[in-house]
């Protein structure tokens, strides 16, 4: 354990040390304790549908190659040549039977086996056990609703347990119709000068910022005309455990991008979705959320999911996918594509303002005096309770920092504990 974590997170008072957004030793400990141990999102199955299809990503700062092998099985490896540590695959996606390292030409098949080593006979005297020098696989890999997750920790609980009660909420995002979802081709990727936790906690359920940060976007009609329906101001924040957090709207609130193709589509499938999702959907409409630590999703003004890749204490590489129901007709998919990129890409009418706030919350913490002061995440403290119907710690009111507190409580636990048994 490197960093002294005492007093960084005070959940009982809703106080958060700003040191956690800037200090390098805390960041390094996050890489070890959180990113080398937790289940992290890799990509969606529909990005690699055929044998040989691959997608390169990161788990924390470790480069990872996700590839469907020639037999159709999905694997994930460190995207690192076993010989000298060179980055093996330098393209972001494609299709391959094998990958050949650019340095000395070691070649790996798409199931990670070391296939060929130049000069094996003369220079190695045929004395290199190739079976021991394949690509390093992740410790565990599993999927939920087509979302591929992996962990580097063999002792981490199974994905199913790790997700726990958040699974129903994930179903509403990614499996509300037969066939689930697919992603639109391409990933938005951009670099934000902020600590990764600020966007992650924002997507946990910062309903508070929407009414001010994004008022300009709402007023000028991004993501559709929100004035067509009046919000009931219902909704709850729901922390289902293990740091996973969902913000919901009230059952009668508008929750879809208000463009005609989408509203008609949503109306046409409402009964089917209600039947599939069950009566819980009469209580809340899941809207935005974060799976601990760095996967987030949104389904109101746009249907997107995100990874916040840490790139040092004060940098985050944001990856953004747009998803649509696989069963939706082409014109509806097109409507979702347009509404998402206009609202929630790096140039989105909503999104472009967020980066400024996350940036400045991070950068002011460079000041040694600024970071002596605690951030305030006390909104709604004491106005939350466990709700069995919603399967989580639920706020009485939709505007609350209940979810922020649960996220950082989990953060502090995972940072401090060396054993999953204690978590």
């Amino acid at each position: 354990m490197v960093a002294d974590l005492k007093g960084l997170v005070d959940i009982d008072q809703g106080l958060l040390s700003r040191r956690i957004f800037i200090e390098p030793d805390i960041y390094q400990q996050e890489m070890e304790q959180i990113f080398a141990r937790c289940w992290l999102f890799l990509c969606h199955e529909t990005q690699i549908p055929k044998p040989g299809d691959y997608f390169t990503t990161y788990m924390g700062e470790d480069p990872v190659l996700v590839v469907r092998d020639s037999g159709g099985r999905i694997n994930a490896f460190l995207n690192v040549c076993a010989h000298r540590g060179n980055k093996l695959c330098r393209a972001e996606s494609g299709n391959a039977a094998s990958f050949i390292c650019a340095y000395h030409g070691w070649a790996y098949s798409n199931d990670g086996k070391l296939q060929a080593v130049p000069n094996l006979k003369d220079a190695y005297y045929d004395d290199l056990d190739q079976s021991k020098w394949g690509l390093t696989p992740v410790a565990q890999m599993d999927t939920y609703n087509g979302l591929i997750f992996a962990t580097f920790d063999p002792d981490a609980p199974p994905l199913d347990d790790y997700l726990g009660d958040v699974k129903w909420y994930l179903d509403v995002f990614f499996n509300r119709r037969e066939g689930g979802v697919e992603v639109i081709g391409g990933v938005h990727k951009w670099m934000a000068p902020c600590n990764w936790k600020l966007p992650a906690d924002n997507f946990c359920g910062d309903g508070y910022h929407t009414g001010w940060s994004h008022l300009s976007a709402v007023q000028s009609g991004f993501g559709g005309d929100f004035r067509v329906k009046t919000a009931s101001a219902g909704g709850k924040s729901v922390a289902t455990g293990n740091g996973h957090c969902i913000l919901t709207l009230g059952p009668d609130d508008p929750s879809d991008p208000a463009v005609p193709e989408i509203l008609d589509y949503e109306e046409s499938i409402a009964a089917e979705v209600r039947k599939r999702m069950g009566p819980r959907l009469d209580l809340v409409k899941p809207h935005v959320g974060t799976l601990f630590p760095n996967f987030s999703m949104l389904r109101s003004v746009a249907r997107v999911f995100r990874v916040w890749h840490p790139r040092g204490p004060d940098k985050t590489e944001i990856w953004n996918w747009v998803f649509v129901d696989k069963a939706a007709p082409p014109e509806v998919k097109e409507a979702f594509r347009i509404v998402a990129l206009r609202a929630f890409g790096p140039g989105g009418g909503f999104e472009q303002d967020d980066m400024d706030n996350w940036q400045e919350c991070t950068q002011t913490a460079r000041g040694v005096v600024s970071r002596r002061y605690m951030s305030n995440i006390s909104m709604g403290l004491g106005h939350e309770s466990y709700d069995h119907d919603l399967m989580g710690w639920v706020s009485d009111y939709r505007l609350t920092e209940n979810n922020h507190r649960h996220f950082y409580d989990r953060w502090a636990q995972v940072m401090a504990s060396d054993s999953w048994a204690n978590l």
Partner: protein
Amino acid sequence: MRDETIREVEQFLYREARILDNRRFRDWLELLTDDVHYWMPIRSNLYPVNSKAISVLDGSRLEESEVSSDHDLALMDEDKDSLTRRIDRLDTGMAWAEDPPSRTRHIITNIEVEAGDSQDELRVYSNFFMYRTRAETEQDFYIGSREDVLRRVNGQLRVASRKIVLDQTVLLAKNLSNFF
């Protein structure tokens, strides 16, 4: 292409750049046709077809372009209405990405003018270097190419479509809050 036309196109693009840098966004909208398509696809980092870094299993993926197609995700895919909303947003006094505003400088170069698909249209290629500085020390460099269709409307050149291709795959700026 007649020199006179080339000069006219150059002057049009320079004037447009000056209008953007002076933040006269309503005036800029007037330079676009009502049916304008303003599109910034995504650039991807892919192996070329002849790369020896991989041996290919399924050749169909090699047909993928490093520039996203029109049904893929894009950084911007706008019409006149959505561009107008972007400018409406800037006028709310709460568009935080532009408050305080960016200071931009559009450098437009490498202009080539070709005949368009119809008598009243021209196909125009150009490169751009858009420098953005903001607040105290923020700076971003947006560099890439544009492919425009300029149409003559009532004797005046107007932008009927613009494809903007940035050279970065991971956008190194924190956002896109300016026009190109």
